[in-house]
Structure formats: C-alpha cells, structure tokens
C-alpha cells in the first residue's frame, strides 16, 4: 500500500512536470491568450505565400478603394492592393524586425551585463558609463539618429531598434549577475581552475535566463511599436515592402473619408500584436521573476 502511494505520487509529479504548458494556461489565462494570438500572427507570417489571397505589392487600378466585401475581405487601397494580403505579409515584416532586434539586443545586453558584473572594477565602470550615455537618449530619438546615419530599409531599422535595447537589458541583467557572482558555485568553479569564459558561459549566463526571457518578451512589443512608428514617419521599412506602419502612412489619412477601412485594419493589427506580447510578457514575468519591473 505504502509503496503504491509513493509510486502514485511520483507518477503524478512526473505528469505535472510534463504538463508545464497546461499549468501555464491554467495559472495565466491572459498570458496563454496572448501566446495564442502571437501563434496566429506567426502562422500568418510563415505561410503568408499560401494564405494571402492576392499579391501584396501588385497594383491593380481597376479595383481601387473597394470597401470590405466577399471578394476583398478587408477592402483595397489607393493602388488597388488587397489590404488583407498586405496585413498578412506585414506580419512577416513586423515579426522579423521584432524577433531579430529583440533577440540580438537582449542577447548582447545579457552578455554585456554578465561581463560587466563578473569582472567588476574598471571594465564595469567603463561599460556602465557608456550605458549611461546611451540611456540618456530617449528610445525613439536614438532610433531616429541611427536611421539618420544608416538610412532607411529593413536591415537598418533592425539595427536602429537593436542598439538602444542593449543597454536597457544589460542594466537589468547586471543587477542579477552581481548577486550571482558571490554565489559559492562560482567560487567553486574558480577554485577548480575554470577560465573566465567558462564561468561566464557555463555558470552565469544559464542563471540569468529568467530575467533575459522577461526582457526579451517585453521588448518584442516595444520593437513592433517602434518599427511601426518609424515606418509611419517614412523613416523605417521602405515601400513597397508591406508593413503595418507604412500602411497607415499617406493613404490612410489622405483618403480617410473615402476609405476609412485603410486606417482601421493595420492599426488593429499593430495593437493586437503589441497587446498579445504585453500579456505574454506580464505572465512570463509573474511566472519567472515577479520582482522584475520592466
């Protein structure tokens, strides 16, 4: 009897661990909702070629300003391009920019933060002073400055969004790594003669994964907003690449009265994606690192 009970408990524990996804959904329904919305956007981005009913960049002046209907679900714009197809392809641009810049920015930031905390002293001082200076620029102003220096285009927008993120992540990661540095296992690693590189990659970085993931998701939403803002200003992704921010530029305000659907769909797409990332980010923060405020 006794052993059966133990076995049952052990089995249950295993089952619980396997169902981490189910548990996440139960405890953080809003976060799960955000994740679902994002999966839909990701699906649209990956299978855009199959999903989009029309070519997103082909002009067709015979069907300009068609209101939403059975043939064009979200209507057409001033060049006769299908809005739905452009939204679907736009999610590819948005997610590409957001994921690349957040991933690169958060990873470089984490590395810099850990290095800064681990070495301390002059290295730390130098990195922190440079961080101070970059943080003195408001996010969008630094992004605008980068665009001014590099020019527009998808790759440059990714760089312009990545650079301002690095110091913001490194600050948070550094704080976590400072506490880690004093841990006995780091001292033990040093005692058996592990190199600095080994300690950083094997012992410190794996232990800052929680704040790293939280920062990464928090920046995904911000990156989408920033890309949309830059593109809207004409300083981001360049025409004819389909991008949500770009779709709101020009036509959406010029023909506001004639074709209000032009202004609605891209804005809803941006808000929905950012909203979903924020919900997921909040849930991840609560689950992984509740003290962190981002």
């Amino acid at each position, binding site marked *: 009897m006794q052993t059966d009970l133990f076995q049952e408990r052990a089995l249950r524990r295993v089952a619980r661990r396997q169902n981490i996804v189910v548990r996440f959904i139960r405890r953080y329904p809003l976060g799960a909702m955000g994740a679902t919305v994002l999966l839909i956007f990701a699906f649209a981005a990956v299978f855009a070629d199959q999903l989009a009913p029309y070519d997103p960049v082909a002009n067709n002046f015979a069907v300009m300003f068609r209101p939403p209907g059975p043939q064009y679900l979200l209507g057409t714009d001033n060049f006769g391009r299908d809005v739905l197809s452009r939204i679907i392809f736009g999610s590819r641009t948005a997610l590409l920019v957001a994921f690349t810049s957040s991933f690169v920015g958060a990873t470089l930031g984490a590395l810099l933060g850990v290095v800064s905390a681990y070495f301390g002293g002059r290295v730390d001082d130098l990195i922190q*002073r*440079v961080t*101070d*200076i*970059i943080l*003195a*620029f*408001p*996010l*969008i*102003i630094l992004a*605008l*400055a*980068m*665009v*001014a*220096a*590099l020019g527009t285009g998808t790759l440059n927008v990714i760089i312009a969004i990545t650079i301002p993120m690095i110091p913001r992540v490194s600050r948070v990661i550094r704080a976590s790594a400072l506490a880690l540095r004093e841990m006995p296992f780091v001292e033990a690693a040093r005692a058996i003669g592990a190199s600095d590189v080994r300690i950083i990659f094997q012992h410190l970085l794996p232990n800052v994964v929680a704040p790293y993931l939280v920062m990464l998701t928090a920046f995904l*939403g911000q990156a989408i*907003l920033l890309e*949309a*803002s830059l593109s*809207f*200003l*004409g*300083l981001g992704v360049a025409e004819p690449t389909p991008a949500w*921010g770009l779709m*709101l530029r020009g036509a*959406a*305000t010029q023909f*506001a*009265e004639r074709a*209000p659907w032009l*202004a609605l769909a*891209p*804005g809803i797409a*941006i*808000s*929905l994606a*950012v*909203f979903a990332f*924020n*919900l997921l980010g909040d849930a991840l923060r609560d689950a992984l690192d509740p003290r962190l405020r981002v």
Partner: protein
Amino acid sequence: MYRYFVSRLLMIIPTLFGVAVLTFVLLRLIPGDIVMLRYGTGALVSEDVLQAERARYGLDKPIYEQFISWLWGLVRGDLGVSMWTGKPVAYEVAIRLELTLQLAIMATLIAVALAIPLGTLAAVKQNTWVDYAVRVFSIAGLAMPSFWLGILMILFLLIFFRWSPPVVFTPLWQNPLANLTQLIWPALAVGYRYSAVSTRMMRSALLEVLREDYIRTARAKGLVEYLVIIRHGIRNALLPVVTVIGLEFAFLIGGLVVTEQVFNLNGLGKLIVDAISRRDYTMTQALIMLSAGVFVIVNFLLDICYMWLDPRIRYQ
C-alpha cells in the same frame, strides 16, 4: 541634501559630454561625405561648389577641430546653421517651441488627470469590474500606437463633425478657444498612452499603502473612508507615480514626434523628422543633441523632486 544636489549636478556634465560625442560620431559615421550625400555626386554640382559648401559648414577642417568648434558652440548656446533653410537652428527651434511645449504640457496634464483617479479607483475597488475595466483601459493604452489613435480621432471628427485639423497653428494668446480645440486631440492621443504606465503604478502603489498599519489606525480612529484614502493613502502612494511620470517622459517625446505628423502640426517633432528626411545633417545633429540634453536634465530634476517629496531618502 545640498551635497547630493551638487554631486548629482556635476554628474550631468560627463553624461552630456558623452551624449555630444555619441551624437557627433553617429552622424559622422555616414558613409561618404555629408555634402556629397546632400548635393548628389559629380555631374550635377561642380567640385568647386562642393568645396565651398564644405568650407561653409567647416567640414574641410580636421575632425577633432570640427568637434571642438561644435562643442564650443553648444556651450555658448549656438546650435549651428540648418543645411536646408540656411537659418540658424536656434531660430527654427524657437518658432516651433511654443507649440510643442504647449502640447507636451497638455499631454502631461491629461496623463496625470487620467492616471491618479483611475489608478485610485482601481485600487480601492480591487478585483471588481471597475478594476478590470481600468486595467484593460491602461493595457490597451500601451498597445495602441499614439499615431493610430490620432488617425482614429481625425476619422471620427471628420465623419461625425466634419472637422479636420486646421493647417495653420493658432497661438494660445491669440485665440485661446481655437488653439485649444486644435491641440486637445493630439494632446489626448499622446496623453492617453503616457498615462497607461502611471495608472498601473498608481494602482499597485496604493494597494501596497492600503495594507499598511497606519491605514488601519486611521480607520480604527473612525476617520471617514475617503479621507483615509486621500490623506493617508494617495499621499503616500504618489511618490513612485511621480517617478514613473518622469521616466515615461521618453514616451512623451516619442508620442510628440509621431503625433505632430498625424495632426499636421509644425512643431519640433515634425522638424526632426523633416530634418532626417531632407538630410539636413546640421539640423538633425543639433535636434538629437537637444532632445537628449532635455531628457538628461529632466531626469536630474526628477531625482531632485524625488528627494524633496520624500525626506526619508538619504543620499551619500
């Protein structure tokens, strides 16, 4: 306190210097020559004209000399001359300052006016539909780009009231009513987004305060509930909210840049976007320096404010 003030003030100087270096380096990173980029290459413009232009902007001198003279200009308050209009940057800024400043103040007031009552309401009615409504409202504010909000407002006003944003800006002192009806919409678009983080902060700060012993004491001695909330609750919860409002000042700058574009307002935000699109490098450089400088100074003032609001904080 005086000591902290001075040391904090002295810390600004190396930061501002670093900001100047970074701004300068960033805009010199541009591949090729600024003048070449602006006037096109070879055929259209003769080499003599290019040389003359370079000399006009001091680009023929060595790079460190250029930096020193630019920095010396900044120290004296001379921001240089615009490559596009040929007028001093300071003049271009001055004629647009009133609009942007008014918009910024209005947006901040709207943000505060939304955040404090809504955050208080959500905290007091925690876990009721009021709380959920406020939270959804503030999360939505974070997700909606302020330029889209602006476009929606224009759409709404145009369809229902046949109102479209006027082309010319009316200063406040000329016609207050026309001025306010023109600026209230962009201020709302920026202010709503600006308020979102502060509303969340107000809610969580007040929830924390309401759990304190002195709140129970105040209730136990029979103080009316609304006085408990106002006198003992809000007062103590306000500090982190003030900080957040200051920290989110960057949001305000970002919001202004895009919203001025939507509402066709000729302010500083539009000036910086135009300067970048027109490859007006002297103007871009000056404006980026200016906004970063303002941001640094606002953060400094915020630190001082923080100390003044909460005398318990002691700094080394």
